[in-house]
């Protein structure tokens, strides 16, 4: 029994963490920007928090605060020039940034380079992750319907038109970019103090893609979409692990394949994510019913 509960706890922890990471990507997606920088911000937060607790014996709340703040500070000088670029250039710049961060840590002897930091004290409890997730979801929910929320939606749909209505689009995009960086950093600190270690390999391009996949698969037009996507894509590979093994599929490739295949299916057939599924099914049923009534 205790073993089962322990595994259950771990799954819930990772659902929560992945939910936070997905929401960090949502921050930029909701105003139409595709950013792959958040794994880099997560790394900065994770290392900052770990160094503070390990070397300075700082209290955990301080490590959490610093882990959220430092990536946010970095996001400002990065975001200001880069968010003015057209979509695909922004994506490339953020991919570049992520690699710069990863390679910087690989080449930094103070943080043990490619090996990273180990034996980080376990300070994260499940409730902390879920309180953080709830707080972020609350904030984003309240954002919707505010003046800023309307502005962000407008920017997402047609940035140039939004600007002619007095909306300073670059400022809003930078603000969301910074917010996303802070959330990713916070998640980084929480994860580091849950898994005892940080290493550059864990914050590379694949991590950034994972976060994006959670957000897009779940649904990037509403604040609970990314969390649903994170939950679905965290649980699914675990649930299918037994079946996968029976078919001779290794867990790593299986998870990757599921992510890719589901993302492709979503982007092609259900672009507003799985949370839009009830709405889409209803529309399909209505269309079929009206066609039957006419025919």
């Amino acid at each position: 029994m205790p073993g089962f509960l322990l595994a259950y706890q771990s799954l819930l922890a990772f659902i929560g963490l992945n939910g936070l990471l997905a929401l960090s990507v949502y921050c930029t997606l909701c105003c139409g920007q595709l950013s792959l920088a958040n794994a880099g911000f997560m790394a900065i937060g994770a290392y900052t928090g770990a160094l503070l607790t390990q070397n300075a014996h700082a209290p955990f709340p301080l490590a959490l605060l610093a882990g959220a703040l430092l990536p946010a500070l970095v996001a400002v000088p990065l975001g200001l020039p880069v968010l003015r670029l057209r979509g695909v250039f922004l994506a490339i710049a953020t991919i570049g940034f992520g690699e710069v961060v990863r390679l910087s840590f690989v080449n930094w002897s103070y943080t043990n380079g490619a090996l990273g930091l180990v034996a980080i004290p376990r300070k994260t409890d499940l409730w902390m992750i879920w309180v953080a997730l709830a707080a972020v979801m609350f904030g984003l929910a309240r954002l919707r319907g505010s003046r800023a929320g309307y502005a962000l939606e407008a920017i997402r749909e047609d940035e140039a038109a939004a600007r002619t209505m007095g909306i300073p689009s670059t400022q809003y995009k930078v603000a969301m970019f910074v917010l996303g960086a802070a959330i990713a950093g916070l998640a980084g600190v929480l994860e580091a103090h849950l898994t005892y270690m940080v290493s550059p390999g864990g914050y590379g391009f694949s991590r950034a893609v994972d976060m994006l996949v959670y957000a897009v698969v779940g649904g990037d037009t509403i604040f609970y979409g990314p969390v649903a996507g994170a939950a679905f894509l965290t649980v699914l590979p675990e649930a299918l692990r037994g079946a996968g093994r029976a078919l001779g599929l290794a867990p790593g490739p299986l998870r990757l394949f599921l992510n890719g295949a589901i993302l492709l299916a979503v982007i092609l057939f259900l672009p507003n994510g799985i949370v839009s599924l009830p709405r889409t099914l209803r529309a399909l049923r209505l269309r079929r019913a009206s066609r039957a009534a006419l025919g």
Partner: protein
Amino acid sequence: MLLSVEDLERSFGGVRALDGAALQVKPGEVHGLIGPNGAGKTTLLNVVSGLFRPTRGRIVMGGERIDGMPPYRIAALGITRTYQNIRLFPGLSALENVMVGAHLVRRGDTFRRLFFLPSARADEARAREAAMRLLARVGLADRAHHLVSALSYGDQRRVEIARALASAPRLVLLDEPTAGMNAAEVQAVAAVIRQVASEGQSVVLVEHNVQLVMSVSDRITVLNFGKVIAHGEPRHVASHPEVIAAYLGSEA
């Protein structure tokens, strides 16, 4: 003079879209802007609203020079617009589109909403009511909650007009607002334009419906090949030989 456009030049590739264009708009005036296809009317609006920079010339709005300013600052000075090919926000309803247009006259309320402060709720209610009133003004109150992508062409244009009025602008640039509308809808739009002007706001009206422009404008400017070929009162412009030649020429 509310808006003064002088000697404007703008090229795209090798094409000179604007070649010394000029425009003078008084407060509370309906100013028509006509000319054959490709005369540079939409380009003029694009430059005035800040989407493009002119390569030469001056634009002065209420005493301030605005050529080269980013669009959101020009909007803050009181210039809004509609678009020839309709640029509504497709995922939003008619009401929500108009509420976006009210951005400049709403207060930032994110923090107040985090604490559920009643003033935030009051602000939003006020904004909604104002948006509903604008939609009623253009005759769309009953379709306020429809997604704009589900509305007819004519209805979409009317939502765009309401959205452009939402920030109480000093000057509204309308780019072919009645294209695709039937006679009754055109008259309704004409009434709104006249009403807007009577309240002290100015309108620049780009239109192919020459009858509409003649009946509703206080003054008209005629463009051809990016230059002004005539300007003044409607009667004067209508009988101007160059204007007649330009339109007949373009029909032939």
